[in-house]
């Protein structure tokens, strides 16, 4: 399980927690998010902009 961070606003997508409000339940892998995924908080960074965080 990895966390991914928006380089603009700091929003974190944690695969373990998912983002249920956006419709991605806990355990949803980063790879299975749609390619059209944009940052839910700032909306100006795309999926490929996110950085994987080191544990």
């Amino acid at each position: 399980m990895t966390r991914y961070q928006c380089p603009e606003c700091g929003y974190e997508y944690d695969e373990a927690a998912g983002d249920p409000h956006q419709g991605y339940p806990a355990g949803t892998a980063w790879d299975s998010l749609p390619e059209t995924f944009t940052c839910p908080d700032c909306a100006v960074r795309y999926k490929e902009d996110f950085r994987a965080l080191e544990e």
Partner: protein
Amino acid sequence: MQHLAADNGLAGYVDRKRRLWLFSLMVPGLALVGPLLYMLVSPNVLWLWLSTIFGYVVIPMLDGVLGEDLSNPPEEAVPALEADPYYRYVTYALVPILWVSFIVNIAFLGLHELPWYGTLAVILATGGSLGFGLNLGHEMGHKKTGLERWLAKITLALGCYGHFFVEHNRGHHRDVATPEDPASARMGESIYRFVFREMPGAFFRAWDLEAQRLERCGKSVWSLDNEVLQPALISAVLYALLIAWLGIEILPVMLLIAFWGAFQLTQANYIEHYGLLRRKEPSGRYERCQPHHSWNSNHLFSNWALFHLQRHSDHHAHPTRRYQSLRDFPDLPRLPNGYFGMYLLAYFPPLWQRVMDPRLLEAVGHDPQRINFLPAKREQLMRRYGLSEAPLDGAGAAA
């Protein structure tokens, strides 16, 4: 950078605008002053015109006289500025001011016999205050805390415009300065034409975004989790209570006020990205929004009244950044007056074009591939300004 911020907070920076942000409470509060003076001092309809005259005459003059402010907080001071709760409290304080102002004005209309020009004055003043409500809902709706997001919905509900919270953050910011965006005006498009695209476009984009999100969540679009419906229910209850108190005759007046409030946003949207275009990349995706895709104004007074909304490029670059930390950058597309003066100009489309078209052409380097044209006017505008398409020898040729 980090250690500087940790050592001495603001890194020696003093925010000279700190107290002046209280103008962001006083200017919207003017709509409440008119009816109060009418009831407590003298029943003179002129009082009711106070805030409208202030908005259309006094603010553009103050912008002309006080001029621009090019100062920025240093980047090291931003974390401390963002963390200072004072700035947040100023935004919270405006919520009850706007609610009280709206209810007092509606009750005032319902309980007084006014000549038509008195009723008109209250509609314009109250609608104008809803415009400030949209600006406040905008500032708070971009933030990450649940409290601020709810305060945004509660504020936007006054003018039946809660869907803005959804449509703006996840729609406008994604599609800004592209033909896809109903909230970005095109070159050659008058404000009167724009409004027919902007208002319905905003509502349906919000609805579609929520429908998609709720489908992913496995919920009905009619669920109470629908963030378009939540503020709409607040609006319905508020308007129903006011009708029960003041009679059904108040409904058309409230709808006119809500429309005039929404039109304040239309005006802001109209001038914020007029004619500017993000280029399409070979992948079919638009280039990321750059600072030169927004119009800016550094005029002091209107920025104090609008929580720095006019530093619009930085807002689009960093949408969650708080108003006190927004910065100016050199060489951005620049408006000749603050938003209020520009609204006046937009009411007269030939005048608007005469002022803005040369600025637009300069901002995009006379490159038609960087202009968001109204399709029907494209040929005509290209001819009028002697523009020619750059030779099409592969992507990036125009860069």
